């Protein structure tokens, strides 16, 4: 279907979706074009803002000058995270946390991960190591080994429930069935766990997870929390579904499963993109465009042996020197130089050296974002998405 929009966003990840929410709320007519589902589906669902230090906002001051956060400004960062929370609570996926305080969640390996905003189902995941933790798992559940966790905490125990199914998706589906939920709760009560908190892998339902979680907590009268799993990750999916539904509610048109086939330009303006697919190719026209296609994992950037390209508009890509310098010898070392690569932008989020005036770039495709090194994944995507939308909204 052809269409004419104020703003066309390429890439339906955290950044593109938040830009879409912001623009729709400004009254703009918006379309999102995405090749597929974004990496937030694979994430813990928690919003990392900046992992270093206790106060992420304070830490931003000490980031290198070219880090994308430095373009955003504290007010916009705070406002964008607040906007995110409002949207998610309207979509049955409330988040808790304080922008000024990092918190910890428990990982399936029994370690802690530092993050900032968390879904309510993980509100109590930050516990003191003296406190008793009872880990629940499911019979033959794939990729979840409670012993990893209990081996790290002296004061812990573990019980296994037989759900009749063993994958993350199928157990989560069962939890939305009343009878299953009641059986689970009465089994849990029967365990007579004497004290402390109850940790359950993140399979407590799909769309109605918050209801399921609240009911379990209330029935047990205890602090319960979810542990994010390896993908498929329910909290990541709930986050994605929540934002996508927020877009639909705002009349944003989605062209999903579609890739850009060609771009029409006139002078310094992009006029339209044509989408590839079976049948007639759709022509999507816009006054302004936002590029939010993510980094290498999502396909926004593509690397060959010694070069990198940007897949939608063929923008120039910044690379940190020659291939030899891209990677650190220690795989687990924080920050490989290749993480710096991406699109360089000016103060108004326009790509430099491209001479296009109505294109704005946001999210992990931005050069120097170094998401892994700084632990700023979703937070940076949200903040730059909303900031780029603010500039773009004035124009479109």
């Amino acid at each position: 279907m052809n269409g004419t929009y104020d703003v066309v966003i390429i890439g339906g990840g955290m950044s593109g979706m938040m830009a879409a929410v912001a623009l729709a709320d400004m009254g703009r007519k918006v379309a999102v074009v995405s090749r597929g589902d974004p990496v937030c589906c694979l994430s813990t669902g928690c919003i990392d803002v900046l992992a270093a230090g206790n106060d992420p906002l304070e830490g931003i001051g000490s980031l290198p000058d070219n880090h994308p956060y430095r373009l955003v400004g504290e007010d916009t960062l705070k406002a964008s995270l607040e906007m995110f929370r409002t949207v998610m609570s309207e979509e049955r996926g409330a988040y808790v946390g304080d922008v000024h305080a990092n918190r910890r969640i428990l990982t399936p390996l029994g370690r802690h991960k530092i993050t900032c905003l968390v879904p309510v189902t993980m509100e109590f995941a930050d516990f003191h190591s003296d406190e008793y933790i009872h880990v629940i798992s499911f019979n033959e559940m794939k990729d979840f080994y409670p012993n990893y966790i209990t081996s790290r905490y002296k004061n812990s125990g573990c019980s296994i429930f037989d759900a009749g199914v063993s994958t993350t998706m199928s157990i989560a589906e069962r939890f939305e069935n009343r009878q299953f939920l009641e059986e689970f709760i009465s089994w849990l009560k029967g365990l007579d766990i004497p004290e402390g908190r109850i940790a359950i892998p993140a399979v407590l339902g799909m769309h109605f997870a918050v209801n399921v979680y609240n009911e379990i907590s209330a029935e047990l009268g205890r602090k319960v929390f979810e542990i994010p799993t390896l993908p498929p990750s329910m909290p990541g999916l709930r986050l994605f579904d929540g934002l996508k539904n927020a877009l639909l509610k705002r009349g944003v048109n989605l062209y999903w499963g579609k890739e850009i086939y060609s771009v029409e330009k006139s002078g310094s303006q992009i006029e339209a993109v044509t989408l590839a697919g079976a049948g007639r190719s759709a022509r999507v026209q816009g006054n302004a465009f936002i590029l939010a296609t993510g980094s290498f994992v999502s396909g926004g950037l593509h690397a060959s042996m010694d070069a990198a390209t940007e897949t939608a508009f063929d923008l120039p890509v910044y690379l940190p020197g020659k291939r030899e310098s891209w990677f650190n010898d220690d795989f687990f070392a924080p920050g490989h130089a290749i993480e710096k690569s991406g699109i360089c932008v000016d103060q108004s989020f326009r790509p430099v050296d491209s001479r296009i005036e109505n294109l704005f770039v946001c999210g992990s495709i931005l050069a120097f974002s170094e998401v892994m090194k700084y632990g700023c994944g979703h937070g940076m995507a949200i903040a730059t998405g909303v900031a780029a939308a603010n500039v773009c909204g004035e124009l479109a």
Partner: protein
Amino acid sequence: MNLDFQHCIRCTICVANCPVSRVNPDFPGPKQAGPDAERFRSDDETSIDKWIRLCSQCKRCEVSCPYGVNPAQIILREQVQYGGKHFRPLASRVFANNYWLGAVNSVIAPIVNRLAPMKLTKRILNVFGISTYLPFPRFHIHTLSRSWRWKGHRKSRKKVVFFYGCFLNYNRPDLGRDVRDFLASLGVRVIMPRQVCCGLPALGNGDIETARKFARKNARILAGYIDRGYDVIYTCTSCGLALTQDYPGILEVPHGRKVSENSYNLHEYVLKLMEEHYIEPVFEPFHRRVAYHIPCHLRALGIGYPAAGLFEKIPGLEVVILEDNCCGLSGSYGFKRSNEDTAVRLGITAARAIKDIDPDMLVSDCGACRMQLAHFSGIPAVDPSEILIKSLKEGLKGSRFQGGKN
């Protein structure tokens, strides 16, 4: 052999989107059934993966994969392989030929409509592997293939062939005629030439030969009209997917590409007429809160949600779009006893999401979705065009449209 499967990075995004593997542990899901298993398959070996049939071809995996792998297509090819080499159960044979079934049923409609709800009939159907949890759709004697074949002014600048599909033809011919008359009222010349089933049910039941036979016939007829300046209009989103994706794709029919490039969803076409200022309709208010269940195959078409674009213009109409659930019926899939449990579980989940927003009615472009979801939610279901036609019936009289003037 198609090598797209090599692009798979095993991210599991498709797995998260697969409705079937979520409720049926016997189906390993799109990643394993698609790209993972593909590396062990060869073109000249018989598949032994019995579970391959459990995929409903909802295409959700295809829409979600960020790396262009298209597991649904890999699985479909394997289903066809499997179907060609193994005995197909009676239920599959019946549904592959649902076109003839519909044709016969409509001739003897009064008898069929009375027999279908009877206990004995149900028991017999069950023995043959056909599920009866849903009330069977009613059949009509006055099918579309027996209706007036053209409507609208001969000299209209806009001309379309209406590909109405089996569901409208046999089960809702009244709606088919309304759509025809509606298009004519927009100043469009409408032709409903003789046509057969799009072929999707045959393909979905592993019978590619029958599917190809149907597709060839349709493509020849449609291409003839396209050459004379007609566009093709469909309302059923699964027919639409067959015309645009499978005719030039797996079915490889002559003129497939031409048909694919010239087919429009009805609502997409109406929006196009508006964009071109061919019509400037006034939308009359329709005061309802509706849940719009997006059929999986509308998502797979990748044309956005055109009916939603029209709903926005209808005063008083409050629309909540629901696209996270598959209704579970997937055409004839859920009518097979072996899939009944899957279909029922998915149907209940999708219906719960609908009931949760407490709508006056539910809307869906797919006849199967409507049957399934009306059954599980108890909420009446309509096609989006029914609302559109209602809103524009009056609005067209007062509007300015140039259709047919030159």
